[in-house]
């Protein structure tokens, strides 16, 4: 693991004393990781694969695929709303923590928004890793207390006749919002539709892009 470490930590090089330093938190991570590897509790290759998967392969793209398919395939949409875990598994996206997925459909009357008030439970298999703001205390607290104000800050105006429902994720239950299909997308295929689906629209704080914005 030596050369790998150096690439990541070269910026701590001290030019005056020609001595490298790692930050305290880097030392703690490396201490824990190397002990776990020595004890056979984690496999370093598996760690690297997991990081690569979440950083580059998952992202919100899996979720965008799910949403685009629901927009273009009524049968899939019905299955998705009935049993989201099973429908999402049809596309090959399987939860790693054994959590159940629930898909929440936005309509003209109801708007759904997802939060985890305790920490940051998040549907990783479909959305990748959570954004920094999702993990922040202000979002976690305010999403419940004043969801309309938070939505407005995200640029999403919700009129008074629309009900806003806030869903609190748990370790066992994760939510994915199915946003409304944007107008002007008639005739677009699934791949083109998927490019309109943003991460924020699947958390429920934003809208999908319009054709031409993608």
């Amino acid at each position, binding site marked *: 693991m030596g050369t790998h470490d150096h690439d990541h930590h070269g910026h701590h090089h001290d030019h005056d004393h020609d001595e*490298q330093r*790692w930050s305290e938190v*880097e030392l703690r991570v490396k*201490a824990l990781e190397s002990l*776990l590897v020595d004890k056979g509790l984690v496999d370093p290759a598996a760690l690297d694969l997991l990081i690569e998967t979440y950083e580059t392969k998952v992202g919100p793209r899996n979720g965008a695929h799910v949403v685009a398919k629901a927009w273009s395939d009524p049968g899939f949409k019905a299955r998705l709303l009935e049993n989201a875990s099973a429908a999402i598994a049809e596309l090959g996206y399987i939860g790693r923590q054994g959590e159940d997925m629930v898909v929440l459909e936005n309509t003209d009357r109801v708007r759904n928004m997802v939060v985890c008030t305790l920490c940051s439970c998040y549907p990783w298999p479909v959305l990748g*890793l959570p954004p*920094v703001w999702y993990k922040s205390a202000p979002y976690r607290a305010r999403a419940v207390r004043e969801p309309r104000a938070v939505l407005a800050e*995200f640029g999403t105006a919700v009129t008074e006749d629309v009900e806003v429902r806030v869903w609190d994720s748990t370790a066992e239950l994760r939510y994915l919002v199915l946003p409304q299909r944007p107008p002007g997308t008639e005739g677009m295929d699934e791949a083109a539709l998927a490019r309109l689906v*943003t991460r924020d629209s699947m958390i429920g704080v934003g809208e999908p892009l319009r054709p031409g914005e993608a």
Partner: protein
Amino acid sequence: MTTAVDLDRLPAIPRDADGPVFREPWEAAAFAMAVRLHQGGLFTWTEWAETLAAEITRAQAAGDPDRGDTYYRHWLAALERLVKAKGAVSDAELHARRDAWDAAVRATPHGKPIVLQR
């Protein structure tokens, strides 16, 4: 993303722009360790979520503004706490190994691979 324009108006909610969610490599390492240890059966995901939530609550009580940027620090502290509670790694082992890495890093000239002397 359409979010960039709102960044300056939002002191309360730190935003990103669909970019990488790990800001530094150690954050990714800490994330991956927890997931793999869970998959290996050391703890349930519910145990993990509870430990992490408790750590965040503790940090907030100690004055952390908790804007998301300190999230993986809490993640790491929770992970250390849980692996010690499970008896997988002891506090003494963690300290000794931390000191060994510190010494190894300092003793390694820039540009050379860092290795632990054992």
